[in-house]
């Protein structure tokens, strides 16, 4: 099998043989679509995921050959697209998280609509740059270094933004104990 480490070679090859870029699609579409669906919902994610790969293909010469995996680069393009095409993302996100909670009230996954609502409010109150870092970290499983590549910022900036974002969310969730209860299926009101 060909791993992510081959992305650089594939993209380099696609400069002369464009059809080789399809390998990048095969490897990363699922990750990019999942990240986008979590951020903007499935319907909008479809358009944005398609646009992400078309834009990536058109800009493939800008891909750094030092980067083995194209995943951070693609998620960076996807994140920029969210901001370009969905400026009302924050408000929508709050709504969508509530909807997600309504879809699975008190389910085995351990959160209910109250927890989701608190979380949505916390995310909505974040600066967009902090939110990008937090969600690339929590929803796309990127490392600090890869978030830095995705957003084209220094790693130190990623660390500070993530730290501030997490502190903000934590405070909005009122206390560590509240969150523990939420994640265990309870609510702060259960105390």
């Amino acid at each position, binding site marked *: 099998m*060909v791993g992510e480490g081959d992305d650089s070679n594939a993209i380099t090859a696609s400069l002369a043989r464009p*059809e*080789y870029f399809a390998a990048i*699609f095969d490897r990363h579409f699922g990750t990019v679509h999942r990240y986008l669906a979590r951020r903007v919902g499935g319907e909008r994610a*479809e358009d944005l995921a398609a646009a992400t*790969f078309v834009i990536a293909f058109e800009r493939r010469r800008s891909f750094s050959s030092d980067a083995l995996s194209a995943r951070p680069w693609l998620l960076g393009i996807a994140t920029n697209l969210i901001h370009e095409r969905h400026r009302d993302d924050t408000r929508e996100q709050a709504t969508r998280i509530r909807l*997600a909670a309504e879809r699975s009230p008190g389910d085995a996954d351990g959160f209910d609509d109250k927890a989701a609502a608190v979380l949505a409010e916390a995310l909505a109150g974040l600066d967009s740059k902090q939110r990008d870092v937090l969600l690339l970290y929590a929803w796309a499983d990127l490392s600090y270094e890869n978030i830095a590549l995705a957003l084209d910022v220094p790693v130190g900036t990623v660390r500070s933004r993530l730290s501030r974002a997490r502190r903000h969310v934590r405070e909005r969730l009122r206390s560590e104990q509240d969150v523990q209860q939420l*994640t265990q299926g309870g609510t702060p009101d259960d105390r």
Partner: protein
Amino acid sequence: MIDELELLRKVARARDVDGSDAEGRARIALQEAILAAGGDDRRRASPWLVAVWPARVGIAVALAAAVLLLAALLRSGSTAGPPPAAAAVLQRLARVAGAQPTLEPRPGQYLYTASHSLTSDTVVPAGGHACELIYTQYRQNWVARDGRGLFTEQNGPRHLAAGAPAACAATLRQIGAAPETSRDWAAPGCLALHTVDFAKLPRDPVKLRARLLTGRVEGGPPGAAEAFIQVADLLRESDAPPALRAALYRAAAGLPAVRSLGTIKDQLGRSGLGLAIDSRGTRQELIFDPATGGLIAEQGIQLGRARNGGTRPGSVLYWTSYDRARVVDHLPQPAPLPLRPRCIQGGSTARTVPGHPDDAVLVGTSFLQTRR
């Protein structure tokens, strides 16, 4: 220790959606972009590109090409969609086919199609074994919009299929192995240019692919292999408009397990772009003319040993090669008998032509005629 991150992840998992439809659309969008960049043909590195590429990149390209070709082969049996090569071929065919002139005959005209094939009949003599007889056939069809027309068949000598019971030799002697020629004229309403209402088929490749995959075009079992064959059904000997042909190719570009065979030859020695899908022990191969996007041949190849042990792996089980379809103004011979009454709902009766026992005229049945 908390974690707000854990809560975020749980929320995220609850929002995950099935992305298979989105993947199909995105794949098509990317393929269009790749084709626009020249990715389907061998117009390689433009002069400026050659000028700026250092040698080490050239080596990387060669290595990557080898690795990716291997990856494409490994993926060929997956459900993730066709390998890039097959998808690129289909997208290229879509572009070419979509630019071809329409083949719809006007009143008084006929759609002319012709095919060469290896075909078979199964004969079961009274109290005997079923015998499969194989022979070559050259078939010509003239079909008008109102359903009148002519079809002729020139059959080569009959042979027993491999593995036929010994008793079949007597059956073959009894019915005769000699070549045969027949002509059948048809009254209006007896033939059809196509059996599927083309106007009702979506031109959106994703919707069309979904309908093909779920058997909502021609019926049949759901699945990629059946959908692939149905694409051929809609393309062969038909007046499918260019936009529909293009949509069919684009729909097939999203089918899993379709493989590119590169440039291959049909049984008449004509070259074309080959695509294949494996199903139930047979490799179904379609061959397309890269210049017109037209289907020029199809054939079935035995993959494993046949159940009766008669055919070896790699044997050509059947094949058909198509001449290029065109619209013509006349039949080659006028009908020897009046072409009436017209057929109602396709029901027909064959009237033999005096002095020509192998010829017939198809007209409406009296039963259906009385209900008209």
